[in-house]
């Protein structure tokens, strides 16, 4: 049967890029439907206001809200519209998706992450399962990401170093801030292993992209050099150059349409003018980021798909994951250190790039039986000065203003180098963390919006706390003041996965081991939705690697790589 394209990809972020790149390079035609604009590297700039304070790359929540369900202190679930709530589940709607704005802290999963259930047993109240694939299945693709998207780093020995098929990273670490050496010294004194954090950032010109300019404004900012390995800069722009990819920006997919036999007939989408258009293909790939992927599939009902597309067993939207963990910070006071040390710490622009994974598995009798732990990343405080300044207005006895505020601002900005810790643990998959459709709220296209319940398991807090307090020890050893650390059950809205688990049992999963729908052999999901458990690291390296793996499955299904 003739189709408009070989493959139709919905979304264009980290989950989509490897599919687009691989299929185009294998000789297939690809159409990409992306709800946001197609910006180029030259369009990005570092603005304290536009991208951050005003969410300029995200839709107006009056037009496109989510409904957030949170548990109150009495155990009731309270729902509210995300407009003016302080929570925003959009992370960037444009070609490349939120990968344009990531910091690119990249860690691989480790072998243990693929079989948590059989290693540590069941966790009460959580739906922990083993993955249907093993680390060895994904390892070649982690390596592919290092080479094609560009990951910089340095392999050093530490207790939880995962196996690798290559000796080291293809790119050396980016430049580091002098504070990294203080972390190294403090960690060594404590017997911990501080390792260089791998980054999806090119330290030098390579792969047709410029090296990093060390502007100091990286995470949450679009990259103006192309050094950051966003799906757009690293993959889609190159794929478009093959001539086989058609990117259709401002194309909001409304529904994946099915015929009377239940097979996919076309995709309906709104174009920039708000008209409904259609496109068809042999293979359909959904990668809208976990919440929107679940929403689109749930919105794609048909006569043979009464609960949504490929949702006979009503698993879509369940076991949504965020990144679990803890956090903390400490303050190094310039006026209390030697002048040359203070001057060196005042340097601005280079990265901290240090992590500790000594407790990726926690084997500490005081903490209980051996269990999954996680990763501690050390990072600069976010550079946006407005956000930092605004926090200074809060005091213990009320708001601070006048000259008292001015002195506090001076202490904060002029006399301090703040260092933050971010501790990542597994976000336990539970029944109370899921996506459904809201029965009452529609977006500006009259489509039901996603309703997101964000319950968390107490183990997130326990492990998050454990890790954050270890990170805090390092900060104290470095001589930091005002060291705090804590765990949080609040979901970080930029690190989202799950909701369309892959697995071997169709009754308990949405996708098969190849991330193909159990019910439709030409429907794939390639963003982080497939993850049944999240691992104790940020997700994107795994999303990229898995998407390259799924691309190979799709190419095989289409008959293999076409000869040139």
């Amino acid at each position: 049967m003739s189709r408009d394209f070989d493959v139709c990809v919905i979304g264009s972020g980290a989950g989509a890029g490897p599919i687009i790149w691989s299929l185009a390079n294998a000789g297939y035609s690809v159409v990409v439907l992306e709800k946001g604009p197609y910006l180029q590297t030259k369009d990005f700039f570092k603005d304290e206001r536009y991208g951050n304070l005003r969410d300029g790359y995200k839709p107006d929540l009056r037009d496109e809200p989510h409904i957030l369900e949170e548990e109150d202190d009495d155990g009731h679930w309270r729902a509210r519209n995300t407009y003016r709530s302080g929570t925003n589940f959009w992370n960037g709607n444009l070609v490349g998706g939120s990968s344009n704005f990531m910091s690119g802290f990249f860690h691989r999963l480790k072998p243990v992450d693929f079989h948590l259930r059989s290693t540590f047993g069941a966790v009460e109240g959580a739906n922990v399962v083993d993955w249907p694939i093993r680390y060895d299945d994904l390892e070649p693709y982690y390596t592919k990401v290092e080479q094609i998207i560009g990951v910089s780093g340095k392999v050093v020995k530490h207790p939880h170093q995962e196996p690798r098929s290559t000796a080291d990273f293809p790119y050396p670490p980016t430049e580091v801030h002098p504070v990294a050496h203080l972390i190294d010294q403090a960690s060594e004194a404590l017997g911990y292993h501080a390792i260089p954090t791998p980054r999806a950032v090119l330290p030098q010109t390579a792969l047709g992209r410029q090296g990093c300019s060390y502007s100091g404004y990286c995470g949450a900012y679009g990259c103006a050099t192309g050094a950051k390995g966003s799906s757009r800069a690293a993959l889609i722009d190159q794929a478009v150059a093959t001539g086989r990819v058609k990117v259709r920006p401002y194309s909001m997919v409304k529904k994946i349409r099915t015929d009377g036999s239940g097979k996919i007939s076309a995709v309906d989408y709104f174009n920039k003018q708000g008209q409904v258009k259609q496109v068809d293909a042999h293979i359909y790939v959904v990668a809208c980021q976990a919440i929107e992927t679940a929403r689109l599939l749930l919105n794609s009902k048909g006569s043979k798909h009464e609960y949504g597309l490929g949702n006979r067993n009503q698993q879509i939207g369940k076991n949504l994951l965020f990144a679990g963990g803890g956090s903390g910070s400490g303050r190094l006071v310039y006026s209390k250190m030697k002048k040359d040390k203070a001057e060196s710490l005042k340097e601005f622009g280079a990265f901290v790039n240090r992590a500790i994974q000594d407790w990726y598995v926690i084997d500490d009798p005081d903490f209980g039986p051996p269990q999954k732990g996680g990763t501690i990343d050390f990072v600069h405080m976010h550079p946006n000065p407005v956000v930092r300044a605004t926090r200074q207005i809060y005091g213990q006895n009320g708001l601070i203003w006048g000259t008292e505020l001015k002195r506090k601002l001076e202490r904060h900005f002029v006399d301090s180098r703040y260092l933050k810790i971010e501790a990542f643990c597994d976000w336990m998959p539970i029944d109370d963390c899921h996506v459904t459709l809201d029965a009452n709220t529609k977006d500006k296209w009259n489509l039901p919006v996603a309703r997101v319940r964000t319950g968390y398991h107490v183990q997130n807090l326990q492990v998050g706390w454990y890790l954050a307090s270890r990170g805090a020890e390092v900060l104290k050893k470095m001589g930091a003041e005002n060291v705090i650390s804590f765990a949080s059950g609040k979901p970080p809205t930029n690190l989202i996965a799950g909701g369309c688990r892959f697995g071997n049992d169709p009754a308990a999963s949405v996708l098969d081991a190849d991330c193909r729908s159990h019910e439709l052999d030409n429907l794939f999901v390639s963003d982080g939705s497939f993850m049944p458990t999240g691992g104790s690291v940020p997700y994107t390296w795994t999303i990229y690697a898995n998407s390259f793996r799924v691309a190979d499955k799709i190419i095989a299904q289409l008959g293999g790589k076409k000869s040139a």
Partner: protein
Amino acid sequence: MPPIRIPPPTVNLTTNSIFMDRRRFLFSMSAAIAASSAVFGGLQSLQAAVKQQPATIAGLTLAQWDVIALIQTHLLPSEKDSPGAKEINALSYFQSVITQPRHDPADKTFLRQGLNEIETRAQKKWRHRFFTLDHDQRENILRDYEQTRDGHSWLVMIMDYLMEALLTDPLYGGNPNGIGWQWLQHTPGFPRPPFKQPALFA
């Protein structure tokens, strides 16, 4: 096991996302900014605009805006070695933000209500208009108002925009010549934003 400290809702895991707390977010505009030259023209063009349409801005009379300016100065006073509300063009910055086409109209109403409340409190307590009170009397009224939920939120709104005027790009009308950045020794990122902002989701 040691107790678990659950943090206030300001915490988000990544450094990278911006950690807004709810109060702050409540009074931040979430829409993309549609640019206009009046918005970015800074104080002079705004004063020119004011001259042409002297009646009200955002539904507030110019006399009411004088009170806002006074409150801004109270919250961020000028000093010999550091800028205050006046030097950072805080008033015109605030006016430009609140008159953006997609700025939530609820903020304007809230701004007016807060101002009326402050005026009422000044009359009741000191039998004078707020504008004529001395520093300590003003402090007293604002501190009292802060004790109420609305008062707290209202003051946070004013201070949030003060911090924006202090530390956002001069392009937006505050922080002239980077005076706020210089004071706090802040290194801005590069490249700097272009004159005209893309309104991506209009």
